[in-house]
């Protein structure tokens, strides 16, 4: 299992997680109600929406993009593409920043923790770490090739 495969698999898991939260937010799954659970508090707060879309829907887009980058990067033609890898590092890095902001809102503003949001943040950090390690590994390889010439 290569890092890119792992990246694609984790992104796929995240995609389903974000899709679940999006469907919940839209009222398709479960009930739209204010209960005692913290997930409802977070999802139904005004921070549950970003630029007119549910935050979870942005998550769907994010994971779909990372999944696409991971799968394309596995293709022989793009395997050595530094541009593609850089895009993956930037996208996942942006994801980590966004997750950090959402976690701050949960802890500092909404004062409630949604376990699905925590799981998503953990997946995002893992995706960034994998992308960064792959980027570093490729940089070292490229330097070794340049030195051997």
């Amino acid at each position, binding site marked *: 299992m290569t890092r890119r495969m792992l990246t694609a698999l984790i992104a*796929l898991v995240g995609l*389903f997680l974000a899709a679940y939260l999006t469907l919940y937010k839209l009222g398709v799954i479960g009930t739209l*109600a*204010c209960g*005692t659970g913290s997930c409802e508090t977070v999802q139904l707060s005004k921070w549950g929406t970003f630029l007119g879309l549910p935050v979870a829907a942005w998550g769907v887009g994010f994971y779909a993009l990372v999944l696409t980058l991971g799968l394309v990067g*596995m293709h*022989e033609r793009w395997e050595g593409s530094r541009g593609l890898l850089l895009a993956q590092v930037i996208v996942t890095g942006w994801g980590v920043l966004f997750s950090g902001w959402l976690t701050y809102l949960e802890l500092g503003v909404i004062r*409630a923790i949604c376990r699905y949001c925590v799981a998503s943040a953990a997946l995002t950090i893992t995706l960034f770490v994998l992308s960064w390690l792959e980027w570093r590994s490729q940089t070292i390889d490229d330097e070794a*090739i340049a030195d051997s010439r």
Partner: protein
Amino acid sequence: MKGQSGQPRKTGQKKPVATARKSNRPFFIIVGLLLIAGITALSYMATRPKGNVSLADTTLPPVPNTGHVIGSDSAPVEVVEFADFECPACGSFATLTEPDVRKRLVATGVVRYRFMDYPLSMHRNTWSAHRAAWCAGEQGKFWEMHDALFFNQDRWSGETTSRPMGVISDIARGVGVNMDQFSSCVDSRKFDPQIRANQQEAERRQVASTPTFLIGNKKVASAISYDEFKRHVDEAVAQARPASATKTR
């Protein structure tokens, strides 16, 4: 890119196609299994019965004649809503669905509608709103205040401010209450016992979330659509109809 041996591959050097395909196979099998599992799980959750409807506890005495009521005394069905003014789902129901309920079911004499306070501890400004609604009610403006509080929920909720009374007072002024009387009423907290009693009634009936509606013999949780609301009301009307009248049809 490292090869199988861990040594760097030369630029342009590619893995043999057969080897690459073979090594990718387990990955695509896992992807396929994940796709099937994920899509199945989401489809199941989206299509299963929502579980927001349960039978009301018939061993409990009827809901006491408290709260705020709108509609005819002779309406065949009374709907009781347990709601929290700071709950977004209650706000969604109040602003999107309740106008239709009032126009098509309450004004036509089918439903008598009772609002019962259920301030949840997770909402820090909700007690201020419930007090304000009762104090507006003292001046005959409960439903105007109810509507305005829900409509302007984002202006005074705990996510926006820790001092909601400024906005709530503006809302009260907008609905036309006497402000001296209103402020004195809110400061005195004289309706807290009634609000707490309604809250205890909700807890006695094991209301787990807001909004929750008692419609006939059913307890319906969540901000349901008008169509679903009407379906429950129709069933309750059919149940309320005397058996003798049903037989003559």
